[in-house]
């Protein structure tokens, strides 16, 4: 009987840990003004919950209970340290600085935003922002983050220690940025989420399983951000991620070979994710305050909604690339636009644009530019030129599935040129 109760309590504590630990941590960081102290307090609070909830029953509001217990445990810890390190005085100073908690629903949600913006502060390196966000906001362990990024755990742990040190010593505040700073600071958060997603989506390294987990984590993070701060570009990024994710299973064959968009089995695309993505794009576009993520999502939405490659609205895609180039000019976007123009106006028109980009010296070291050129030459029946372009692409490409794909194309072309 007693075992039943303690097993029940442990299950409950586990469930509360999964749903509440990130919120409790975010609030404890604000109350205690220190990441490490807050993490220790979080663990102390959950350890106390296992003991005390079995004895006295589960509190009405577990979150509030955990926050105030964590705060008391931290104060205890600081008192103890102060006794041993009285010369230092730092612990005591901190103890005095510990604020009396104000715990309300809005406050807790604001703390989650504070945590996100602090972890993604542009004064931290991109690597540190990613590691800290996955660790503190998503609750991944150091080992999990290290595994996902194929980094030794000790390197990752060092990165996190250094980032926390910078937050403390450089005085990075725990706050939601002011209106005037928001665009730049939000960009930084969106960029971190996008990098995490791409790390999982572009299966460049490692096993496919861990990578998919990272994409899922990025989508969860994007969803949380939209919930806390429904800014158009946050919606745009979430839309972009869900629309890409919807196509995941059709992007590779069972044996891990790459499948181009035009050859993908569209019945494999996840309709629910596409619907969610499309709805988000429409909402973001409707705000008239959208940016590059929303525009890229809009392009992905057109692809996702087309019944077949031929039925794709290429004119609209070219138009969206035009807007994208105005707000966020880049040769890679120009290349994508050229591919869309080739679909709208024929391969010749696209080829002229790609040749112009390459002639400027932009993208000459980018394998996809040569692969795209090879594809258009192939469609035009210019076999020797297509072979040269694919050979150039192969010299630069590093990812195995892409290399196999290019080699496959080359084999077919060489066969054709012999005939």
């Amino acid at each position, binding site marked *: 009987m007693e075992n039943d109760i303690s097993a029940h309590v442990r299950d409950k504590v586990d469930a509360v840990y999964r749903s509440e630990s990130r919120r409790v941590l975010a609030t404890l960081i604000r109350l205690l003004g220190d990441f490490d102290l807050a993490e220790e307090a979080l663990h102390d609070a959950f350890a106390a919950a296992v003991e005390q909830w079995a004895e006295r029953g589960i509190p009405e509001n577990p979150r509030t209970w955990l926050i105030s217990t964590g705060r008391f445990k931290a104060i205890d810890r600081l008192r103890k340290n102060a006794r041993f390190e009285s010369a230092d005085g730092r612990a005591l100073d901190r103890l005095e600085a510990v604020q009396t908690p104000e715990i309300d629903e809005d406050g807790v949600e604001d703390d989650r935003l504070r945590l996100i913006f602090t972890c993604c502060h542009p004064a931290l390196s991109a690597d540190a922002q990613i590691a800290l966000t996955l660790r503190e906001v998503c609750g991944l362990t150091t080992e999990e983050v290290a595994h996902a990024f194929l980094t030794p755990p000790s390197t990752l742990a060092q990165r996190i220690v250094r980032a926390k040190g910078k937050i403390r010593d450089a*005085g990075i505040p725990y*706050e939601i940025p002011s209106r005037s700073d928001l665009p730049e600071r939000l960009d930084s958060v969106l960029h971190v989420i996008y990098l995490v997603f791409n790390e999982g989506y572009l299966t460049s390294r490692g096993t496919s399983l861990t990578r998919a987990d990272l994409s899922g984590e990025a989508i969860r993070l994007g969803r949380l951000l939209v919930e806390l701060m429904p800014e158009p570009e946050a919606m745009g990024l979430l839309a972009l991620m869900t629309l890409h994710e919807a196509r995941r299973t059709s992007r590779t064959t069972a044996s891990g070979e790459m499948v181009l968009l035009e050859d993908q089995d569209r019945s494999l695309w996840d309709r629910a994710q596409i619907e969610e993505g499309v709805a988000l794009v429409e909402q973001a576009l409707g705000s008239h305050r959208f940016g590059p993520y929303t525009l890229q999502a809009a392009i992905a939405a057109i692809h996702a909604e087309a019944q077949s490659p031929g039925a794709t609205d290429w004119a609209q895609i070219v138009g969206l690339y035009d807007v994208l180039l105005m707000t966020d000019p880049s040769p890679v976007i120009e290349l994508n636009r050229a591919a869309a123009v080739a679909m709208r106006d024929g391969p010749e028109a696209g080829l002229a644009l790609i040749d112009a980009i390459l002639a400027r010296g932009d993208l000459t070291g980018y394998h996809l530019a040569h692969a795209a050129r090879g594809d258009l030459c192939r469609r035009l029946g210019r076999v020797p030129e297509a072979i040269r372009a694919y050979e150039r692409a192969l010299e630069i490409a590093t990812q195995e599935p892409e290399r196999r794909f290019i080699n496959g194309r080359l084999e077919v072309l060489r066969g054709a040129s012999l005939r």
Partner: protein
Amino acid sequence: MKYLCLIYDDEKEWQKFPKEVQDQYMGEYGAFTESIKKSGQFVAANQLQPTHTSTIVRSRNGKISTTDGPYVETKEQLGGFYLIEAKDLNDAIKVASRIPSAKSGSIEVRPVVERPA
């Protein structure tokens, strides 16, 4: 907290500016300094002589060696500093972004180690 804002700019460019442009720059600096004195964020500030006036000094085993500076050749050189009082890094970044050279060069913002008196 106190932050040291180190001002890096291309001093060769600066020397090439006509006098009116230099005067205008100095005017902007004067107005900026005045504004942070008013807001109570000013602690200290100085412009430095160009890097060709720099000297590197080392003492090893009691032996002093003196060489011509600068330490390393860089595109931008340290040309001056502001020591400011700011609430936190975001506050310091706001102040640093208004230093006139932020538009042409770059500002390094470093927190000062504060020890209990």
